[in-house]
């Protein structure tokens, strides 16, 4: 019996499964191990979540849908411009508020006419929520808003506002966390007379503050 396939080790497809088998401790132990693993799983409780009957236990920061707190929105358009797939639509007009004091200046403010998110386009990246300077957008864990028609996934501001009550409160700060910059600034000890010891420490204490604000 001549061996035409001499360079066998170079050909992984034609080489036998033997080396792999040896590493798993032989064929028979491997076979038994497979049976034992499945039998053990059979004896254990299952992992299935029976979803429509039993509501799922969602982790605290789950991204279900984006909720809008309309009062906070200034129609600044930052979210719409940062959105990677342009799924946020904002219409607004300016409104003049007459001066409250005689001789005062009239003020203008933006009034939000329309705020809509097309969830058929949204990819749940959360950039809009990150960039909103006024905390008008929030992650809500609500996820059951499927529609029969894809066009019905364009949700207007009243619908977005309805999800606001489902937004969980922000998690408490870690007790070992650094103080927020504003608080740190207020609590900063008042300037005292220059002391030789305090001097080298000051620059290092000042620099973290702008970082915290950024």
């Amino acid at each position, binding site marked *: *019996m001549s061996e035409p*396939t001499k360079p066998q080790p170079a050909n992984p*497809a*034609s080489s036998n499964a033997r080396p792999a088998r040896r590493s798993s401790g032989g064929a028979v132990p491997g076979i038994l191990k497979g049976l034992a693993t499945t039998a053990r799983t059979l004896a254990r409780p299952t992992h299935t979540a029976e979803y429509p009957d039993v509501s799922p236990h969602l982790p605290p920061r789950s991204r279900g849908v984006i909720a809008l707190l309309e009062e906070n929105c200034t129609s600044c358009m930052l979210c719409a411009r940062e959105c990677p797939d342009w799924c946020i639509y904002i219409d607004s007009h300016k409104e003049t508020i007459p001066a409250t004091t005689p001789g005062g200046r009239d003020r203008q403010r933006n009034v939000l006419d329309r705020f809509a998110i097309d969830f058929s386009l949204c990819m749940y990246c959360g950039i809009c929520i990150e960039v909103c300077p006024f905390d008008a957008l929030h992650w809500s864990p609500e996820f059951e808003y499927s529609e029969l028609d894809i066009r019905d996934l364009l949700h207007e501001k009243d619908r977005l506002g309805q999800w606001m009550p489902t937004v969980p409160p922000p998690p408490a700060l870690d007790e070992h966390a650094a103080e927020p910059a504003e608080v740190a600034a207020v609590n900063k000890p008042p300037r005292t007379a220059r002391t030789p010891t305090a001097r080298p420490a000051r620059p290092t204490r000042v620099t973290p503050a702008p970082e915290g604000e950024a």
Partner: protein
Amino acid sequence: MSPYVVVAAVVVVGLLLFVAAMGARRLLAPSAPTRAKLTTYESGVDPVGQGWAQTQVRYFVYAFLYVIFAVDAVYLFPWALVVRSSDLGAASLVEIGVFIGVLLVGLVHAARRGLLRWV
């Protein structure tokens, strides 16, 4: 009454089951054939060439080995009926031993030729 009458009846019942099921399907299932639906399935692309093609000769070797050994194996069943008889038992053991031994030479031959190896 021979048990094979029942067997024949079971064959008939099986064919009736098939006919009845196909009748039920005809009544209940929709039929809306389109050209695309009736094309041969090739993972979504248009079929290339014909479905009937030549295949490997290897399979043929196994089929042939089986035919030879099946002919051999059917003689084991009559043997089972005489092996306990006092006059034929030991003799038939030798006979069948020779019979299978000769064929085993063939299997060893095939194995040594490397025909039982796939690659």
